[in-house]
């Protein structure tokens, strides 16, 4: 059974500490995404990015970082687009329980 998550008006977690793998599945469902191993791999890379740089990455740095961590095949925007449509940086950070990338770009 789904736990009730507190979300902000954009559907991101209001409290990042609420994140769990179960929460991620719920957040993914709200984006019509069923999480596969390929998704989880990216989600954990994103969490690591946030842990390491204290930032929620927009597309370009995300692609670069995925390429560094998981190899060039996966570090491509088309690959991320297939997993987290329509806007991988926004959708994936939501599911990974990162702050909403600031509207700065």
């Amino acid at each position, binding site marked *: 059974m789904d736990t009730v998550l507190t979300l902000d008006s954009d559907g991101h977690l209001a409290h990042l500490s609420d994140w769990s793998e179960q929460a991620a599945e719920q957040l993914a469902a709200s984006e019509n995404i069923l999480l596969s191993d390929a998704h989880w791999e990216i989600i954990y890379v994103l969490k690591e990015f946030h842990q390491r740089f204290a930032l929620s990455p927009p597309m370009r740095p995300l692609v670069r970082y995925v390429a560094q961590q998981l190899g060039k095949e996966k570090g491509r925007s088309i690959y991320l687009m297939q997993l987290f449509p329509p806007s991988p940086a926004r959708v994936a950070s939501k599911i990974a329980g990162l702050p909403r990338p*600031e*509207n700065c770009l």
Partner: protein
Amino acid sequence: MANYCIKSDTMTQRGAHEFCLQNEGLNANSVSCQTIFYQNLLEYLQLASVKLLIKQIANPMNFALLILGPPYSTQASASALRFARAALNGGHSIYRLFFYHDGVHNASAMVTTPQDESSLPQQWSELIEQHQLDSVVCIAAATRRGVLNEQEAKRFGKTGGNLSPGHEVSGLGQLVDASLNADRVMTFG
């Protein structure tokens, strides 16, 4: 006799010409508050049979101003305002005002001053209105400091927006764009 400045489309035409019109039978409201394309302007003036005084500026520049200082706490905002006025009076254009860091407080409509002192946020709004300037307040910096437009206020569940007229809230991309496309970038911190 009032002078009205009309700019060509500064967004697409670099080094835009500035025109000074002498106010002869010209409806001030119809020209002072909108940007008119160079071509359309000439056609319009022909139709209106207005005597046109064109002042060609030797070296017209498009300035971008990055304003980091809050109103009153430091002089930075007042200095930037004086610079902007002097640039416009000298026939130059302002590509964009970008309010960032504590500068976002210059866009707060809540700022209130005694009758014998001028309100910097109000003066900025008036300058923006008068010259139809592009003014951007960084959304991230402003949100952190409690300067929000109606839409953002609603989104974050706050009681109401407090953004002064004339400003737009947008991202740092607008600063990057201004840095790449304005002729000169000035920081006022």
